[in-house]
């Protein structure tokens, strides 16, 4: 089997293929061109709570970020990079670490303000900010000088140089050919320059968004979006009554359901230093965790076992595909039998609040540990506190679910590693997987899992349920629903 690195074009095609976006995978549908106008009403599992794209990490918040923040680069339906607020897709300069970003001079926010180089600097610096830590620091870690911002010694990375109002030079501290894909994530998008404009969020009230007619890709198809919260049963009822046009969530709500790519990964991190002699038993228990059963019976949404830290959907076959119980999972048969021991205290399993897949995995782990003579207690904490405690090692095992934003293995691994091992883990992930794809990336991701003591468990994806009039509720190039592509049959005419 050839392990040569595929070309960027081929990589995009492979990524699109495995995301289920490639041409052949799309069933042929009759041709009705998109119609403009109307209000699309969408039910989400919860109301968006976070309007800042740098802080969005849960599904509803990420949806809102994609709707309201302007992406520097876009991903076309085939997964290829395309201009967004940037006028062109940047290529690395001679040294391979420098990228020249040129903003579209016509790019405006919804209020008509031009998008300037300073806004890009602000977005890249924002995710590194120490004052309100972002779950997406991984997105700017490769920029030279990122460390100083994380440490609070600088306000912006020294590796970003503003050349003019519409041009800036970004120097990386490491070679990272995937850097342009980072610019296609909502994490570093420009607030207020997205396809929609949101009214101020009010707790418990549906979120209303109106079309941004100044969006550089053209105004979105729908005039308005209204986001409400409903559980699966409620969403199905609303769909049936025609009170919403579609629903996004882990469960199906109706007959016209389309699964989205499984890009939310659940991973456990073992704190070997704190566990001491119990670490081997915990690792053995994690290795014995039946991930297939976890995916089938306990995870919500369309779920599959996760062989490495990188969602299988981003890897084009290879070792991980061929061997679902790859190194990262350490199957029980190969694990040494753990002698029952009695630790002086119950183990602490940390999970973020509201992460149902992480909680389900932690509960299964709790049972397995009990069988091995280890008592464990679950502790659910707010996401911000979870990230800090997991990175600081303030738990025995941390289990997190991370929705991968960038469809490249190195960036996905960095995001996952950052969620559980902080900036240091993310840097190691970037260094280990940069420029790798397919089997090579799968092998590197497996090795990274061992190195960081991370145990990949399951990958899940949401389900998109559409009513009879809603179209466009499907995965875009990034594997997520593009709010600007939602439209109603008949537009605003009905």
């Amino acid at each position, binding site marked *: 089997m050839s392990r040569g690195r595929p070309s960027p074009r081929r990589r*995009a*095609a492979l990524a*699109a293929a495995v995301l289920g976006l*490639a*041409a*052949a995978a*799309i*069933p*042929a*549908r*009759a*041709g*009705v*061109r*998109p*119609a*403009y*106008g109307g209000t699309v009403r969408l039910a989400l599992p919860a109301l968006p709570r976070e309007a800042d794209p740098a802080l969005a990490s849960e599904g509803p918040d990420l949806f809102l970020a994609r709707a309201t923040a302007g992406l520097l680069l876009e991903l076309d339906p*085939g*997964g*290829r990079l395309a201009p967004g607020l940037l006028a062109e897709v940047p290529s690395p300069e001679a040294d391979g670490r420098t990228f020249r970003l040129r903003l579209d001079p*016509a790019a405006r926010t919804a209020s008509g303000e031009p998008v300037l180089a300073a806004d890009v600097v602000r977005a890249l610096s924002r995710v590194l900010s120490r004052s309100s830590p972002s779950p997406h620091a991984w997105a700017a870690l490769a920029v030279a000088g990122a460390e100083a911002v994380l440490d609070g010694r600088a306000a912006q990375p020294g590796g970003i140089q503003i050349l003019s109002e519409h041009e800036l030079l970004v120097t990386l501290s490491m070679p990272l050919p995937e850097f342009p894909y980072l610019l296609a994530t909502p994490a570093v998008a420009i607030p207020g320059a997205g396809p929609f404009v949101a009214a101020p969020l009010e707790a418990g009230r549906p979120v209303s968004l109106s079309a941004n*007619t100044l969006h*550089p*890709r*053209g*105004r*979105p*198809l729908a005039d308005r979006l209204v986001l409400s919260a409903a559980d699966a049963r409620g969403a199905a009822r609303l769909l049936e009554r025609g009170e919403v046009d579609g629903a996004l969530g882990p469960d199906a709500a109706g007959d*016209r359901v389309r699964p989205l790519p499984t890009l939310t990964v659940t991973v456990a991190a073992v704190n070997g230093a704190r566990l001491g002699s119990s670490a081997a038993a915990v690792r053995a228990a994690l290795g014995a965790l039946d991930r297939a059963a976890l995916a089938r019976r306990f995870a919500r949404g369309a779920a599959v076992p996760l062989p490495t830290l990188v969602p299988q959907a981003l890897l084009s076959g290879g070792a991980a595909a061929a061997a679902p119980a790859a190194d990262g999972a350490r199957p029980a048969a190969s694990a040494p039998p753990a002698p029952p021991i009695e630790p002086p205290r119950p183990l602490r399993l940390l999970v973020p609040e509201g992460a149902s897949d992480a909680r389900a995995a932690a509960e299964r782990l709790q049972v397995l540990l009990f069988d091995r003579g280890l008592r464990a207690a679950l502790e659910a904490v707010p996401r911000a506190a979870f990230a800090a405690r997991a990175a600081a090692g303030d738990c025995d095992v941390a289990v997190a679910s991370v929705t991968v934003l960038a469809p490249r293995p190195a960036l996905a691994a960095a995001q996952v590693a950052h969620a559980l091992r902080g900036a240091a883990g993310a840097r190691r992930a970037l260094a280990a997987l940069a420029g790798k794809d397919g089997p090579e990336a799968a092998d590197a991701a497996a090795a990274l899992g061992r190195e960081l003591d991370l145990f990949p468990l399951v990958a899940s994806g949401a389900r998109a349920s559409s009513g009879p009039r809603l*179209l466009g509720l499907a995965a875009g190039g990034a594997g997520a629903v593009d709010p*600007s*592509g939602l439209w109603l*049959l*008949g*537009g605003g*005419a*009905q």
Partner: protein
Amino acid sequence: MRLALASAVVLSIATAAPAAPAPATPPSLSQLAESLASALGPPLDGRRDVALAVETRARPLAPPLEAALASALAARGYAVTPLGGGAEPEAAARAGGHDWLLRVQAGLVPGRRELAAVAEVVPAWTSFFLQRRPGARAIPPRVIEATAAADAGTLALAREGRPAGAPFAGVRPFARVPGRVLAIAIGELEAGAGPSVAVATPGALSVLSGGGERSAEIALDRGGAPPVRAPAAALAIGDFGGGRLAHQEAGARGSVFSLSRGRLERVASLDAAPLCAPAAGPLFGAFAPGTSLLEDRLSPLADPAAAPRSASRLYGVACAPRGGPIALALLRVDLRLELLGPDLVPSPAGPGGQPAAIDGVGSGFALADLDGDGVAEVVASSPDPSSPDRIRVLAPRPGAPAILDVGPVAGAILSGAAGDLTGDGVDDALLGAVLPLEGGGEATELLLVTADPREAR
């Protein structure tokens, strides 16, 4: 350079010229007969007695062609005896004591409006030296041929009938174009060059020959105009002043192009969407700002200030190439097709004064008089985006069942146009089905919908 169309172009779909008295023999038949008679030359050695056998693919063409030939041959000194439709014309010619058998076969040339005839000149007299071989020819036969441009009368006579039990029309691939075709137009881009097909894709305009081969292409520049999220274009072939091809992409300024020696050249700008250009004159509309939908605006002038008919938005407008009682069709975003007569009013009037309309028409559609009965049919894609596409031919009246339903069709049909591409004198339709390609990208399969029986063979 601005195009000064506003003062020059006036829609006159409503006024059809009174029909002139039909000549006894269609001119193109006379021309063909004259050419063939010239190729035959004067009687040889005083042998003037000609038995004439005429065979044509379309039976109605044979008698007038026979008459035209008889007349042309008589004018050259031949005594002509038509043999009718006998099975053994050579034997009949010999039995009748004729000098020659002129056996003529004629028909329309596929893809061109041209009538062609091939004739065998067979000696029918008995050779003194070959008396022991009664069937032997006294001298070797020869073949002569002639062609003539087919006029409307000849096209009507030469058009082959649909075989019994055959479907109303057939569908076959015409050409494949890289990218997503946004609009199609069919017409004559250069005088006397026959029909061409123009296709607009995002950022490019291409011209295909009537046989489907690409003959010209030009890259388009949006000129800094902001993009629209779902690209669309309006495209028409007709008389647009300095050029015969007019194009506008949604959100951008339009242009008029001319085709010369295989090259497309931009000759003027255009501040309107060229909807179509039937024989009666072009018709213009406008894209709604920021969108890929058309406003409900129809104007014979390229006038950006023309008043809209309503606040509705349209997917597209189609014209019947030859007019008729159903001259225009407007597809609204609710997939309702409004049918208009030549005077741009609903036709036929719907019940209660409501506009005549057909519900459930997909956004790839055309108006084409496929059967040549003078009334255009609606050739349309499926309106149901949840199932594979289909090609349907609908009678132009509300609630009428589909005359033809072909499918499933690979891809999504998003564009359509009508014109005579097979050269049989009646309309065909082209529909563009957008296909996703493995490895990314798209291509558009142009599908020819035709009732020309020759295409079904």
